[in-house]
């Protein structure tokens, strides 16, 4: 599991004051849990990713992954436990052919050749890339490239897979499909998934949502619980999914919508479940 105890982090600028990016953060994420971390730019979510992959180290407090403290001397142990998929696959794919790139990580671990071959084959299969395993990377579509990047992370057999806004360059339907793939993988491999995003609809697909603002975790809970707090989310500059926002406004006008409403489909269902008598007189106006 991932544990953060009072973790603070500040970037050292040239000479002036240090800029705090994380402030006294307490967090715990179970093994195998699926968590979405949301927040606008500068909320500290990218810094959190850097800390969890031992690219940066806490200036105060302690972060532990499966009991191993995130410190410089443990950096390679930490990186075997945590794999990351970044925003732009072009910036993280190293080799020039699909299978070779998926093998890059396991090759770095110095594993026996048979095991690398097996891991690569399974990772390619999990993401449906078997047929293009020998294709040059430059001939792939952005969505395929991102799947190669995920396969590369998966071949590391990490305890936690961090997705650092990997869908922001993809069209929405493709993004959702990608998230679904990762969720299936989580179920099969029992690996924890942390999805860092500013897309609320994507966050809604996860078990737990952590909202970050100014280096703190300001809200945490189920997607339904978090997205109900529309006004608070607006205050920190986040957009609530349209369906959730609409549902909240309808409820405030006295329309008794049932259940948790996060997606358009939820809203449609809740609306069609309404009985004619449910409309209060004052809600019928514009």
């Amino acid at each position, binding site marked *: 599991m991932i544990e953060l105890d009072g973790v603070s982090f500040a970037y050292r600028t040239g000479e002036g004051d240090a800029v705090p990016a994380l402030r006294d953060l307490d967090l715990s994420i179970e093994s195998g849990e699926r968590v979405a971390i949301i927040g606008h730019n500068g909320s500290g979510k990218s810094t959190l990713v*850097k800390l969890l*992959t031992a*690219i940066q180290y806490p200036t105060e407090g302690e972060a532990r992954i499966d009991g191993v403290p995130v410190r410089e001397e443990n950096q*390679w142990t930490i*990186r*075997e436990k*945590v*794999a*990351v998929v*970044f925003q*732009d696959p*072009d*910036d*993280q*794919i*190293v*080799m*020039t*052919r699909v*299978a*070779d790139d998926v*093998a*890059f*990580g*396991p*090759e*770095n*671990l*110095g*594993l*026996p*050749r048979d095991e*690398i*071959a097996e891991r*690569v084959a399974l990772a390619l299969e999990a993401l449906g890339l078997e047929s293009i395993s020998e294709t*040059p*990377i*430059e001939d792939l579509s952005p969505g395929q490239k991102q799947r190669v990047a995920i396969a*590369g*992370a998966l071949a*590391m057999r990490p305890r936690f897979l961090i997705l650092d806004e990997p869908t922001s360059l993809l069209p929405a339907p493709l993004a959702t499909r990608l998230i679904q793939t990762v969720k299936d993988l989580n179920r099969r491999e029992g690996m924890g998934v942390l999805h860092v995003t500013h897309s609320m609809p994507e966050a809604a697909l996860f078990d737990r949502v952590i909202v970050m603002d100014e280096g703190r975790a300001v809200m945490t809970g189920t997607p339904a619980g978090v997205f109900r707090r529309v006004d608070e989310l607006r205050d920190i500059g986040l957009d609530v999914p349209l369906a959730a926002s609409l549902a909240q406004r309808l409820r405030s006008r006295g329309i008794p919508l049932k259940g948790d409403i996060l997606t358009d489909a939820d809203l449609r269902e809740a609306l069609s479940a309404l009985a004619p008598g449910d409309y209060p007189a004052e809600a019928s106006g514009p």
Partner: protein
Amino acid sequence: MLELQRNVVFGQFVDTGSVVHRVDARVKIAAAALCIVASFLIDDLLGFGLALALVVGIQALSRIPLGFFLRGSAFFFGFLVFILVFQVLFYTGEASGYLWRWGILSVSAEGLYTAGVLGLRVVFLYYITTLLMLTTSLVDLTNGLELLLSPLQKIRVPVNELVLVFVIAVKFVPIFIEEMERLARAQTARGVPFDEGGAVTRARRLGRLLVPIFINGFARADTLTTAMHTRSYRGGRNRTKLRVMKAGPPDWLALALVTAWMLAAWQL
């Protein structure tokens, strides 16, 4: 204006699955290196005739169409002819007689012969290296190079790292080309005419593309470094390679054949 790759055959890889493609990459690299050395030893037309005959034979075996090769080499041959004309006109060695002479310019039998040999040497070098790249994928090429050069590791030459740097450089070429095209389109949309004006104006306009490309390059390098760290890259040591190279008797036979042929071309 930015069609850099499409019409040049040099550096391309075309997979026809032929015998030549299946020869071990190390053997191909060694054979090519051998031919390059030979090209500096051979100095007569007969020798180059023989050497070129071998390469033409390999080309036929590789099933890469000659027409495709020639079309992709038009620029190269044009440039070569241009250079050779100068070579003939400014020939300064011993000449038994002049076919034509005007001031310091002249055409002599010796000048033509020297230029001819030089031309064949350059064509041979170009032919052999292009063919090597046409028949060997980048992965095989770099893996082969890494293995061939690995003895240098003992005298602390960081072969693994250097080869990886090369691989990454090559990987970024299409990415940067794409980025350059996007930037050019973005600027064209804002009214920058890239294909108008004199050479200086055009060069200056290209500067507007180069600066953002350069800055972008640094940002990408930074992210890639982070990504490589998170993927546990800690230098070339202690890495296992997924791809194994196996050279069998046919590979050695091919190398022996090329060696013998080149020796013959040199000695005859």
